[in-house]
Structure formats: C-alpha cells, structure tokens
C-alpha cells in the first residue's frame, strides 16, 4: 500500500483495527472528538512518559468529550504487557485503547511512518478528528521529543471554541483569552466593523471576549 498523507478538513480515512479493547473502527468514535496518536514502540522510555502523560490528561479530555486512541507497530500482547508494566511500576492505568498495527495498515493510511527517521516504527503523530469524522489538526513530533499534553489540550480547546463561536484564536491563545473576530471580506463589512465594540488594532485584526 503506498504511503498517504491525510488532509485537513477532509474525512479522516476509515479503518478497522485490532486494539487492546477489541476490534474498533474509526466510525465507532463518531459523535466524539478523537485524538488518534502513534508512538514508535512499546517498552521505550520517551513513549512510556508519554503514555503516563496521556493517561493523566484523560479526565480533562473526557470533560471535552474527547476519546484517545493510540497506535504502534507492535502486537496486542506487547501492548498489554507494556500497559501492565506501566500500571505495576508507575501506578498509572492506561484507560484508552491502543491499535496493534503489525501490518502497518493504519500507519500507512495516515502517513505515520517517516522513513528518514525509521522504516519500521511510527513517529509521534497526533491527529485530531471531530465528531463528524473530519480531520481537524495534525501535529508531528520527532522520535527524540516527547509530546506536550498542554498543547494537545490547547488545540482541542481552540478548535471547540472556534466551532462554537465562529471565531479564530490568536497565537499562544489559551482558554479564557480573547478570540479573533474573522476578518471582513468586503469594504462594506470593514466599514461596519468600526463601532461594534471590538478591540481592534486595525480593521482586519479585531478581538473580543467570549
């Protein structure tokens, strides 16, 4: 199967895969937000810190109606053994399913293998999929760099805020900060923007509180 890369704002590629929670399909997550993420391998140090960190933000994700689904090119037995080891050694239970993608089917579908890094392991990819199954964000990290969980939460907060309020969010935005009013598309809209109570730097850059 040729390597493909999914695209933003298009339907996330459907799959059916064996996981630590049984066989799941992408469509099983319909009506929830989903963070689909890959890690290079079980029983490796950076991945272990990430799994603990994902488990720690799981309650915050649940508040936002977000499910987690991990993936690596390991067997389901390896996943189970690793999770039991994490629970035994670090007293952290991994509450989400992890795909055992031994045939690299899902990894190939989502472009999770970066041959320049490794031809046999997935990189640290994050795909954020909305309740309608649309791919809304992709973040790729190299193997040597563990992911920032606060950034993943921030991206979800930003997407949910943008969707619910028809706004955009500025650089370094975090929940509670002012948001950006979409730029006007016509001269008339630009003129009418003045006096609407927004905090404007100029006609094209206006913010408001929610």
């Amino acid at each position, binding site marked *: 199967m040729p390597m493909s890369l999914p695209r933003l704002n298009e339907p996330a590629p459907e799959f059916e895969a064996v996981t630590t*929670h*049984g*066989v799941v399909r992408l469509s099983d*997550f319909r009506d929830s937000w989903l963070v689909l993420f890959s890690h290079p391998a079980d029983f490796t140090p950076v991945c272990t810190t990430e799994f603990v960190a994902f488990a720690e933000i799981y309650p915050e994700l649940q508040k936002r109606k977000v499910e987690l689904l991990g993936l690596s090119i390991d067997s389901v037995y390896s996943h189970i053994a690793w999770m039991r080891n994490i629970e035994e050694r670090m007293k952290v239970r991994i509450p989400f399913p992890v795909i055992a993608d031994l045939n690299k089917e899902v990894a190939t579908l989502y472009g999770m293998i970066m041959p320049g890094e490794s031809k046999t392991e997935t990189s640290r990819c994050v795909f954020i999929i909305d309740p309608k199954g649309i791919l809304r964000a992709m973040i790729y990290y190299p193997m040597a760099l563990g992911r920032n969980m606060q950034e993943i939460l921030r991206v979800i907060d930003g997407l949910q805020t943008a969707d619910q309020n028809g706004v955009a969010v500025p650089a370094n935005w975090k929940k509670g900060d002012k948001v950006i009013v979409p730029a006007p598309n016509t001269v008339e809209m630009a003129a009418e923007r003045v006096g609407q109570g927004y905090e404007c730097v100029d006609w094209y850059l206006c913010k408001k509180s929610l």
Partner: protein
Amino acid sequence: MPCVNPDGTLVSSARKILEAARTAGLPADLAERSRLPLYRVHSALRELADAGMVLEVDGRYQATEEGLGRLGAGP
C-alpha cells in the same frame, strides 16, 4: 473474540452491554445505561450481533434469548 473469554463466559463489559440491552436502545442509550464509552459499545455490539446475542432493528439493539441465556449462565 474480546466479548467472550476462552472458556465461553462473557467479559464484564459485554455483560454490562447485554444487561443494558434487555430493553431495546440506540448505542448511545446503551452506553449511558452501561456507563461504557460509546466506541466500546459500537465495537461490542458488532461482535454480539455476529454471535446472535443481540438483534439490531432500525439502529436499536436488544438482547436476544441467546444473549439473555448467556447472562443467566453467570460470569
């Protein structure tokens, strides 16, 4: 089959879903009744339906006699 142990007994999540499906319901209803994530319910319902333990009519799922019999058989 993740819903059924090698000795033929049901795993606890499958029992919860079958209990929830004593009365017909949408997957979301069964998720609420069983307090399981919706994806787990979708996944398990496929297996339970293949095994003849639940029946789907117009998107609503209900435990069959076979499914209820398995519940009665104990864990």
